């Protein structure tokens, strides 16, 4: 039975297109997203992240999930020389950039473990897909054009995989370079294809934070294929990107 559902969680519209599962399975996936929100949100005073930030928890008292999220934050912070950071000076601990991809991937894994083999889960433009929507056809994941909201600039054909895009078009300049605290310039849109959304999403965000340096940095990340648009509307793409010819 196909299920389609949209719910706003973590401040994101989350759309599920489940081709072979039931509403109960879909609910379990959405419940895990709501749970991630209450556990990791820096905007909820009683979340684990907020309690850690206030010093109410020690590292030893953290759940394995938060330890995993924080270690991902640390890894990308190191790898980008601090351009990507979960601790922007003057603000509290904010692992959102990692939590989003991590939590959505976990929700997708719940669907798979629940027996689903064909679905597309889209959280605010970050996508996990499995199987095929129709026999012989991949999921067609359009990448939003940086200038036109109603058009795409490339279509990827994805079966089991994850696609994340970090871009400037909606919230204005919302990604800061952790090295300078200043808004990032040089790049308009970074799309990363990988087999895990935690990796794809964080790589896209971190590449964006690096500005122009992020182009080569993202392309050199293991198991990541990129599609990057710079300020001059020039496109840089990996040869391994699964571009779908329409």
């Amino acid at each position, binding site marked *: 039975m196909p299920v389609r559902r949209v719910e706003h969680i973590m401040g994101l519209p989350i*759309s599920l297109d489940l081709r072979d599962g039931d509403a109960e399975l879909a609910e379990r996936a959405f419940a895990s997203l709501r749970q991630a929100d209450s556990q990791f949100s820096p905007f909820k005073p009683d979340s684990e992240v907020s309690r850690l930030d206030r010093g109410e928890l020690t590292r030893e008292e953290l759940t394995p999930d938060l330890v995993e999220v924080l270690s991902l934050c640390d890894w990308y912070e190191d790898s980008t020389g601090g351009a990507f950071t979960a601790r922007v000076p003057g603000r509290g601990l904010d692992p959102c950039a990692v939590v989003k991809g991590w939590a959505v991937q976990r929700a997708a894994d719940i669907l798979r473990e629940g027996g689903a083999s064909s679905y597309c889960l889209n959280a605010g433009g970050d996508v996990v897909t499995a199987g095929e929507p129709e026999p012989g056809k991949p*999921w067609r994941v359009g990448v*939003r*054009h940086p200038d036109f909201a109603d058009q*795409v600039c490339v279509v990827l054909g994805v079966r089991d995989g994850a696609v994340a895009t970090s871009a400037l078009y909606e919230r204005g300049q919302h990604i800061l370079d952790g090295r300078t605290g200043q808004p990032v310039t040089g790049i308009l*849109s970074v799309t990363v294809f990988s087999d895990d959304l935690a990796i794809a999403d964080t790589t896209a965000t971190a590449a964006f934070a690096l500005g122009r340096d992020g*182009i080569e940095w993202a392309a050199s990340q293991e198991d990541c294929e990129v599609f990057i648009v710079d300020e001059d509307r020039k*496109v840089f793409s990996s040869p391994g990107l699964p571009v779908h010819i329409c």
Partner: protein
Amino acid sequence: MKRAIPVLALSVAGLVPVWLYSPGAAHEGEINEAAAAPETQQQKQTPAPAAPKTTSPAPKANGTAPTTQQQQQQQTQTRNVSGPAVNTSEGTVQVQVTLQGTKITDVKALRAPNSNPTRMALPLLRESALKAQSADIDTVSGATATSEGYKQSLQAALDGAK
């Protein structure tokens, strides 16, 4: 230890031009230029030398290196060149460089301590112009990050469409 691999990879990368050096390749830059502009290269073409595997010195014409069939072929041929196995305090490291003509297209660690052969990250990017299309799609990446934006987004249209 991780640092040793890129360093070795770079060392090998640095050696490659030296290995490739032959008197005939002295005008590599010009050959590349010719390859980039095939129509002019055609005009400058001279008969190919008999020995297929050498890049023997070819006579100069109009101060430009003539491009032969072999050289042209070498320009696009894919070859793997393995570096020496180097013993480090952490173990043996050996890298392999893949060349397309004279361009390095990939670097792979054949042997690295405590790890399987891995593809070294070497960015290979294609450049193109940004295009806009309104294609038939199932979902949108980078669609929206806010509730307000979502209402007007392509993804919202897709969610409502089926």
